């Protein structure tokens, strides 16, 4: 699970995240939402050890990220919006490289079914340059899942994917949660979050506006129990929804 207590991050005098606390249990998928500049990416980066927080504590599967960063990172996987791959390594060589970094002794036994499940078994000798955007994303996922992480972070996971890729990604996230992982997902696509997430955390200007199950958040900010997350989001952040596009006259 992920436990965050009093997390804060300042860039000089500017507070990007302020006193943020939340927890995500195994099997839960938490959507991290907020307008631009709300502190979503900063929160993700602090939680994954990419940047040091100014204050607060993050525990990954029970391991304190500040006290034992290596131990904590062994239990997490982070998927950025754009898959970052090595041009000169094939699909299989990427997995070999990752296996060595994470010390996955039985990587061959794990990688084969992983590639098969991601429909990449026939691509093992191909370079990233030969793969489509969706295939690259799958390779990044295969690399991230090779060490069986308990905590998984996704940053805008649907960027650049086609409809089939989007569906597959959503299925993957749901499956990972079903298998017991705690998942945090940052995205602007509220309808997708509504489909995938069990919980949601709304941020604005670095502060937590709301956190809880989807139903709880909907109930808190809207009058109708069947209102959409989008409606709840705009109520919570008090932002006017997008106006209809103005088309040129005939």
């Amino acid at each position, binding site marked *: 699970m992920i436990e965050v207590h009093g997390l804060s991050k300042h*860039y000089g005098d500017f507070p990007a995240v302020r006193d943020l606390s939340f927890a995500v249990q195994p099997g839960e998928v938490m959507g991290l939402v907020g307008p631009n500049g709300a502190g979503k990416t900063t929160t993700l980066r602090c939680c994954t050890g990419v940047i040091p927080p100014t204050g607060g504590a993050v525990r990954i599967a029970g391991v304190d990220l500040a006290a034992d960063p290596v131990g904590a990172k*062994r239990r997490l996987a982070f998927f950025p919006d754009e898959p970052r791959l090595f041009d*000169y390594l094939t699909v299989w060589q990427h997995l070999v490289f990752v296996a060595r970094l994470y010390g996955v002794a039985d990587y061959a036994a794990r990688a084969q079914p992983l590639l098969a499940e991601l429909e990449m078994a026939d691509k093992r000798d191909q370079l990233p340059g030969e793969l489509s955007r969706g295939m690259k994303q799958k390779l990044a996922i295969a690399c991230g899942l090779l060490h069986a992480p308990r905590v998984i972070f996704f940053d805008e996971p649907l960027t650049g994917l086609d409809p089939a890729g989007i569906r597959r990604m959503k299925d993957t996230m749901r499956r990972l949660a079903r298998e017991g992982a705690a998942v945090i997902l940052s995205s602007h696509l509220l309808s997708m979050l509504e489909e995938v997430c069990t919980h949601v955390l709304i941020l604005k200007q670095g502060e937590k506006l709301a956190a809880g199950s989807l139903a709880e958040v909907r109930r808190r900010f809207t009058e109708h129990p069947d209102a959409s997350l989008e409606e709840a989001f705009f109520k919570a952040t008090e932002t006017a929804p997008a106006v209809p596009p103005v088309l040129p006259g005939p």
Partner: protein
Amino acid sequence: MNGALLYLQLTALRNAVRQRLRRLREPRYLIGLVVGTAYVYFFFFRRAMPRGYPGRGPAAPPAEVGLVLALGFVAAIMVGRIVYAWIFSADRAALAFTEAEVAFLFPAPVARRTLVHFKLLKSQLRILFSALLLALLSNRFSLLGGSAWAHAAGWWILLSTVELHGIGASFTRQRLLDLGFRPGLRRVLFGGALALALAALAWWVRGHVPAPATATMRDLARWPAYLRAVAALPPLPWVLAPFRWVLGPFFAADAATFLRALGPALFVLGAHYVWVLRAEVSFEEASIDLARRRGERIAAVRAGGWRGLSRPTRRRSEPFVLRPAGSAPPAFLWRNLIASGPWFYPRNWLLLSAAILAGLGLLGASPTYRPWLTVVQAATFPVSIWVLFAVPMLLRRQVNLLFERLDVMKTLPLRGWQVVLGELLSPVVLITAIEWLLLAVIAVTAGTLTRNVFNTVWLTGLGAVGIALLVPPVAGLMTAVPFAAALFFPDWVATLNQPRGMDVMGQRLIFAGGYLVVLILALLPAALAAAGPFLLVRWLAGMWSAAVLAGAVAGSLVLAGELAAVVWWLGGRWERFDLSRELPQS
């Protein structure tokens, strides 16, 4: 030309200049500009201009060997470009436009010929700037006679002709493709014709102009006369006439010769212009594709990803088997060696080294060619120094690549020192491999030249082993400097990725200066530690090479300690490194 295109060109130029001037408000650009300008003035202008102005007395006569070298260099550029254009290039007819130009100009009501003119005018900006720089460079190294202005005009004619030839050749290739000549068939026909012509030429020259015997270094001076005799042997003067005409203004020693040479050169240039303009082939589709690829390349380079210049298309074998268990740094070495290419894989490198050393042995066995070993030996020293300095500077790009993936790299379960050591390993291994080969070359050439092979190789080899011990820690420290610069001054290093400008050049010079200072400070303790054993062994054994070995052992131990401390220190910095300034916040 269409007024809108002229407006586009001039406005873009004016805005680019304004942007450059505006960024001088930042001190690092201003300081960079001052340093860059001072460098260009003292290195090029101060030496070049007094000889370059016409009417300041006759220019110095060109040195014979220098002229041959210069001719060879310029001819190699031309021939290489032409051979590439006609034989190797597989590209379709394409003109280099930016993606924005494609988006705005191609659907616009602009004639095809206007587009070609626009492209030619645009390329002239680059060519004029290149001609000026090359003229300064060619004048700086006093190999040639003539005036700076003649050189500038000569470079302009040469570069413009080569540019037009490239475009014309691509148009002709497209025409051949349309007629059913596949690239493979064209390569076989043109390459075969060229190979046949060269073989016939070699046979013809051998029968008419005997090569000079080269028993000693002094005999090398006969080669310029030999090459002149070859160039005068019919039919070569006719075949080479267009090349000679184009190069005529460049090598003109005085104003009268320059003016006489100008006519034929401009004729060749004009003929190329007409050729390009009259070629009616469709270049639009390939140009769109080219613009897209250029856009991707530029984006990759701006992001610091120099690999964006060429993406691999084939799977590469692995340098060694990477087992899943074990420490992490070798995994970085494994990955980076794959990226460097198979030349540096242990087995391939050993085979290459053996082949080079065997080749040198064969060269030394021939009385005719043995003097060339002196040239090889003399060239090895500057090359080894260059490798030691230049390769670590290239690490800056590797560090940029690391920054590109920093958000993923920082989530790896590794200590900072493991990442730093891993990233340093591959440049250290590459430098060490090259330097050890060069040391072996020096030892073997020394042995062969003194004709006391065993004794000299043994003696030189002893010293070479000593120096070889120093190479890995020195290379490690040198590669650590750009790494440290990137971690401690990320803004400054990010600026160095910008491709052009005197201010950016100045910043690179400041960086190189700081690099040298840090390096000297790092080497000082090792030099002090090496001095004692060196002097002691020299006094006791009286052998220079043994003394070098003893000093090198002591020095390398100190350097290895320094390197370990630096890796540990940089590792700590890596762990605390805050990406906030490198990555966009949201």
